[in-house]
């Protein structure tokens, strides 16, 4: 009875949405003057690739937690795909890429994808439909908050997590995306280079992860009780899907299908390769064994670090960026226990540190020989670029850290951040979702 009433409420809510249908649909009309089919094909498939990264992340993270939390961990990434996509279509895209408001945010005139149709928006991509650019960017907005979840894995209350995600995207991600990529954004105006999201995606999430791990506190038993990954084969599969999808992330960010996309593809791959090797060798020397988790983690570190640089640097330097990322992130992750906070899956060490290194490295290795619309870095005679990069990095770190901390503080007071002790002991799968990951009996 009661549940029937609730269903009725839902249907009513759907009816409200319906009212908007007519308005919004109008935006999709008008002729598309100069759409290039090859560029569009590339950005379409890139969007699909980037979409796949978030389930890839779900597996990457899911394999690293204990068995009893595997579904809860996967769920966080999976449902973010749904939740943030809706947020993005309704107001997120407008806040991030809509007409500039004082260099800090877009206004709401593109609410509900109003004015976002099949015609290109030359400000962002002159040869592909505006909707395609929008949906490509949507996938970036999706994966960013998903990255954060790794830091607070195995203890985040699901209901709070949902609200947090919505708020964080709106208050932290959307403005930062506007600063760096939006027409009129202040960091964009400064001339900072961030090809595919080193600051927007990785620093913002890595720093938010830091704030969240501090605020949330340690998992019960950490670090005394060992909490080894329950299924590294799943983690490797996740890493492979991330690597695969990242070609769309970085090379798709060229928003055309030509030489620039090609270079971005090549440097993405080479940096990742170098980073996987570097992490593996570093751990081998340090701990005596080359681990599979290390190779996978190194690959992710490389992908993170090359992200901001991918449309600006040449292949050989990309290997340096990757190799340094592998060693730096390994070092950061190894030192974590010394600091005593519990970043469960090392989001800070990988995305925070890797993203920062990548953003700064862009200021070292960028060259107009690769991308005439880019700039030269320190090693190509332009030290100024490194300074600009540093400003962008600092702004992102501060904003994300302070903002995330405030959001979490408020939410802790209002809804509580963590599951209860018993629920944590029972695991998120059962306590939050009423399910089991594996039932191997029959």
């Amino acid at each position, binding site marked *: 009875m009661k549940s029937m009433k609730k269903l009725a409420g839902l249907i009513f809510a759907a009816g409200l949405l319906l009212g908007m249908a007519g308005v919004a649909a109008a935006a999709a009309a008008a002729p598309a003057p100069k759409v290039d089919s090859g560029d569009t094909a590339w950005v379409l498939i890139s969007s699909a690739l980037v979409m796949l990264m978030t389930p890839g992340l779900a597996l990457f993270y899911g394999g690293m937690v204990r068995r009893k939390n595997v579904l809860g961990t996967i769920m966080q990434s999976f449902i973010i795909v749904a939740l943030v996509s809706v947020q993005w279509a309704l107001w997120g895209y407008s806040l991030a890429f809509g007409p500039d408001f004082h260099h800090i945010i877009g206004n709401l005139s593109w609410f509900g994808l109003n004015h976002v149709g099949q015609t290109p928006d030359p400000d962002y991509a002159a040869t592909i439909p505006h909707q395609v650019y929008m949906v490509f960017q949507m996938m970036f907005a999706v994966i960013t908050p998903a990255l954060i979840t790794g830091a607070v894995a195995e203890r985040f209350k699901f209901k709070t997590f949902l609200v947090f995600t919505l708020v964080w995207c709106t208050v932290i991600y959307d403005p930062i995306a506007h600063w760096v990529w939006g027409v009129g954004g202040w960091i964009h105006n400064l001339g900072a280079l961030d090809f595919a999201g080193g600051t927007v995606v990785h620093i913002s999430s890595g720093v938010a992860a830091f704030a969240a791990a501090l605020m949330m506190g340690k998992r019960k038993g950490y670090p005394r009780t*060992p909490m*080894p*990954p329950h299924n590294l084969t799943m983690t490797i599969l996740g890493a492979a899907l991330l690597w695969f999808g990242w070609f769309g992330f970085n090379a798709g960010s060229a928003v055309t299908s030509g030489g620039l996309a090609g270079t971005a593809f090549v440097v993405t791959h080479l940096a990742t390769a170098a980073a996987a090797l570097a992490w593996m060798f570093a*751990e081998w020397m*340090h*701990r*005596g*064994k080359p*681990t599979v*988790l*290390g190779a996978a*983690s190194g690959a992710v570190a490389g992908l993170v670090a090359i992200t901001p640089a991918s449309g600006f640097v040449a292949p050989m330097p990309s290997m340096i960026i990757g190799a340094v990322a592998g060693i730096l992130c*390994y070092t950061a*992750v*190894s030192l974590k*226990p010394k600091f005593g906070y519990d970043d469960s899956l*090392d989001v800070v060490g990988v995305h925070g540190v890797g993203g920062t290194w990548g953003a700064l490295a862009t200021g070292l290795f960028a060259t107009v020989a690769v991308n005439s619309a880019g700039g030269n870095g320190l090693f190509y005679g332009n030290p100024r670029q490194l300074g600009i990069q540093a400003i962008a990095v600092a702004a992102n770190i501060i904003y994300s850290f302070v903002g995330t901390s405030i959001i979490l503080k408020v939410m802790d007071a209002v809804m509580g951040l963590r599951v209860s002790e018993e629920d944590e002991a029972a695991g998120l799968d059962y306590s939050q979702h009423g399910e089991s990951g594996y039932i191997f009996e029959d």
Partner: protein
Amino acid sequence: MKKIEAIIKPFKLEDVKEALNKAGIAGLTVTEVKGYGRQKGHVEIYRGAEYDVTFVPKVKIEVVAQDALLPEILKVIEETARTGKIGDGKIFVTAVEETIRIRTGERGDAAV
């Protein structure tokens, strides 16, 4: 009747089963267990951190048999499961008061 419980190294299972089989023992039950004893576990490494894995995988074999067969069974298991290295395991013997074959309802020595 006696119940012989042997905790052995997993890779010896097939050999022990074969040997018991040859000795005329054609029924046994096997459980995967983890043991802790003189043989220590090992260290695993995850992202630069070391984890102690204290328990060692073992296999428990349970055989219920007539009293008369006890010495032979003990001998067979001892000889086949022995590698001479630490962690070879233990054999425990207990008394069984009754045995029933569910299929037929037979009891006692006939049921083993």
